[in-house]
């Protein structure tokens, strides 16, 4: 059953319980320096606000903690271990120099309320990153404050709203294509907009005629991902932008897929008014098992008055300062200035690449996706034939007659030594059967070939022994987990037995 697996072998993997199961009163994982001021009586100082004890917080030694997490870590897949073909997630190499520079004392230890004179280094990093991102996107200004992509969307759409408010226009709706990521409609809702769905055409692109008929004075903006979530560049992007602008609307671009464009095409050049970037995708900051991210929002001049506060500016003497006095600002979206540590990493990435490296990166990313597309066509159904950029989306149409769905194929990939591709979207792939593959530029040809081989083998298995796939994974530490029960009777924390 597993004889075609080339990428992995079986090995032992350490078991490890919950940390609470290791706890025993009196074990210690810390030791404090002695107090150099007089001791105090907390009960006296705090009165009835004093806490008695810390319940079931664990008591373990330092070594147990280190070993605990070392063992846990070995249960994870990671880019460092192999290809992570999650479409829309841009799981690329996270350079280690980024981690090193982010930990330099003056940087890691900087308090956000340091007087500006003592914070020129961090302000300079923000300014240098801002300048680079503005150039890369072809936009006019930027805020680094949002903490992730969805947060950037919210910031951008609020600026759209502020823009219309400033013109005393009350537009109620945001247009969102059916291929969009879930954060797009969720964001529109938070910003008080209604969501209007925009159909895609048979080529997987915005249906321009539908747009023409739907666009109206009631619509504030179109939230477009470009290349879209099928990995397809909206070839009619100029028409789309024009249509929006003609009716006074704005074009928002979800920049999740900028890894297809950097150094080759600039959104600012094709009519985008506002967009966010995901530094944790395109600019190599690590995903960290869920975050942190960073979602800067780049804008055209017209939106500048609405930027969140504060905004960095240069003073006469060349030093940098923060401007809080911006009456038209949408306000803050986060305390302080954003996920600064991610700015450091993204800037380090840009410096490591330079203009030539950034362009080559994009070219390699697109080449890798097209290589996979070419090699898997035939084995998997390609619902949309338009040229692929940095990712390619197949469907499970050829496998579903045997009962094998995209989610099953994904689980079987685990046995073959790969992390699954994205299964959850885009929803416009019929029957929700998307197989969304983004290799990024970071994969060598050998790794791609192993992936292709695995996918082809699984396609064969789907015909010959579908139950192998339906019961996958077979070789992971755990078998398929019961999500239904987890949902029905949520156990969300450990409790002392």
């Amino acid at each position, binding site marked *: 059953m597993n004889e075609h697996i080339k990428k992995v072998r079986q090995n032992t993997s350490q078991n490890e319980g919950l940390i609470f199961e290791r706890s025993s009163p009196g074990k210690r994982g810390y030791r404090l320096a002695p107090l150099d001021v007089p001791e105090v009586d907390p009960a006296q100082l705090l009165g009835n606000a004093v806490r008695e004890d810390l319940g079931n917080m664990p008591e373990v030694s330092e070594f147990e903690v*280190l070993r605990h997490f070392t063992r846990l870590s070995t*249960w994870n*897949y990671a*880019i460092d271990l192999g290809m992570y073909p999650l479409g829309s997630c841009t799981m690329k190499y996270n350079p280690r120099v980024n981690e090193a520079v982010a930990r330099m004392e003056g940087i890691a230890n900087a308090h956000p309320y340091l007087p500006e004179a003592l914070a020129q280094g961090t302000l300079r990093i923000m300014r240098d990153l801002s300048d680079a991102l503005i150039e890369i996107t072809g936009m006019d200004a930027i805020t680094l404050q949002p903490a992730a992509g969805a947060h950037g969307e919210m910031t951008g759409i609020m600026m759209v709203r502020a823009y219309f408010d400033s013109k005393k226009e009350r537009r109620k709706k945001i247009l969102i294509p059916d291929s969009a990521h879930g954060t797009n409609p969720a964001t529109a809702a938070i910003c008080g907009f209604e969501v209007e769905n925009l159909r895609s055409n048979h080529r997987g692109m915005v249906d321009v005629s539908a747009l023409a008929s739907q666009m109206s004075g009631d619509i504030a903006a179109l939230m477009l991902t470009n290349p879209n979530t099928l990995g397809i560049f909206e070839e009619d992007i100029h028409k789309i932008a024009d249509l929006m602008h003609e009716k006074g609307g704005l074009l928002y671009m979800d920049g999740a897929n900028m890894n297809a464009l950097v150094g080759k095409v600039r959104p600012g050049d094709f009519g985008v008014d506002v967009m966010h970037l995901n530094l944790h995708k395109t600019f190599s900051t690590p995903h960290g*098992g869920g975050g942190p991210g960073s979602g800067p929002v780049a804008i055209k001049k017209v939106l500048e008055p609405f930027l969140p506060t504060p905004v960095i500016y240069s003073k006469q003497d060349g030093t940098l300062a923060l401007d809080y006095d911006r009456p038209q600002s949408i306000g803050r979206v986060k305390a302080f200035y954003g996920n600064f*540590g991610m700015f450091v990493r993204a800037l380090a990435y840009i410096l490591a690449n330079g203009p030539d490296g950034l362009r080559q990166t994009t070219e390699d990313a697109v080449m890798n996706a*097209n290589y996979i597309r070419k090699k898997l066509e035939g084995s998997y159904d390609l619902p949309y034939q338009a040229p692929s950029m940095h990712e390619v989306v197949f469907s499970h149409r050829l496998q579903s007659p045997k009962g094998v769905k995209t989610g099953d194929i994904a689980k079987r990939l685990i046995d073959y030594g790969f992390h699954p591709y994205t299964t959850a979207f885009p929803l416009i792939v019929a029957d929700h059967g998307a197989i969304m593959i983004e290799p990024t530029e970071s994969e060598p040809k050998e790794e791609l070939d192993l992936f292709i081989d695995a996918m082809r083998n699984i396609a064969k298995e789907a015909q010959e022994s579908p139950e192998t796939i339906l019961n996958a994974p077979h070789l992971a530490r755990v078998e398929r987990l019961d999500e239904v029960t987890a949902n029905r009777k949520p156990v969300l924390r450990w409790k002392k037995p």
Partner: protein
Amino acid sequence: MRYLPKSDSDRHQMLQEIGVPDTDALFSHIPAEYRLKRDLKVPRQMGESEIVDYFRARSSEMVAGYGIMLGAGVYYHYRPVVIDAVVSRGEFLTSYTPYQAEITQGTLQAIFEFQTMICELTGMEVSNASLYDGSTGVAEAAMMAVRVTGRSETVIARSVHPEYREVLRTYSQHQGMPIHEVDFSEHGRVDLKALDAAITDQTACVLIQSPNFFGTIEDVAAIAEIAHKKGALLIVSIAEALSLGIVKPPVEADIVTMEAQSFGVAPSFGGPHVGVLATRERFVRQMPGRLVGQTVDKQGKRGFVLTLSTREQHIRREKATSNICTNQGLVALMATVYMELMGREGLKELAIQNLAKTNYAVEQFGKNAKVLFPGSPRFNEFVIQSGVDPLEISCKLAGQKIVGGLPLKKFYPELGNASLWCCTEMVSKEQIDAAAKAVAQ
């Protein structure tokens, strides 16, 4: 480019297999007028040593080895080295959100432990897997209260971190969520009478911070009573997580939202830090953010999965409880490692040290300046009223490698020359003495 694992011959071969003559062909469907025909104007490709030099130069433009007496939402606590040893492991650092549970059990179990400890510390029943930070946590909590109660208004104390309040205002502005602020008394705590008056039958929640922005501990029980009496939820925001080591958890609250930066996370000029939201079991389906739950695999072995995701944007889209997707995973892991290292006794011992330092500082500062809000219990921050502009004090202290307190005028004009000082275990007695002296004159 040293990150790219391809030689020119690899590229050549791959393009051939794809069936295109060159890379440009892969971009030819993009309208020509949008294709960039020049190099981006970013700095030239740098060697690794040059990158290090660039950031070393930036780092040296900052303060190093100073005693920093700033708090105000970002706290200096010693970060045990094990934290970085753990989060630097590629298996954690370079893993994605654990949607595919079978090969991300490490991350999932760690989050489950995080959720458990947040519950233990806050006295809540369920905790999520993280939010962006303490400020957005306040906004998410208020929105959640609106969903839970079906009411629309928020009454927030002015003693909540001013930037948290700003964020709440931004989030709420287009959601029909009026915000009312309630002032603090001369004790530096919520003015209970004013609070009582501010709550209406449209009040979804009362939102306070404790220890509040002035370092003062609020009377959570009394406030809860006032809020609950009128059918509003009580949301307690905690900016200094370490306070939970010695301060009674806000068990009377309905929602607790916390910034956990104090738990082993570097200040890093304000982020990434880690927010978290905890609440009562009965509100779980209105919570924002990811949740990890325990389950079993086909063999009955314990395992963990992301759960209750019908609350989330990737399923519910515009009806989701929040638009959050990427959260602060790795930072939550830092906090998890910290909480496990310090544990039941360490958090307490450290919190008491912070109390002692601050108590000593208050005594010393009190000899030379007016310490505001006397009589109220406080954790590791206090406000002083000085004769001169606090910036002058800071200038004096810079020579002694000390960064003084935060001037409050910007946030609270009525407090004049007041400034907010913080004394954690990282500030020495000598530094406190020096600062207390500088405050005199």
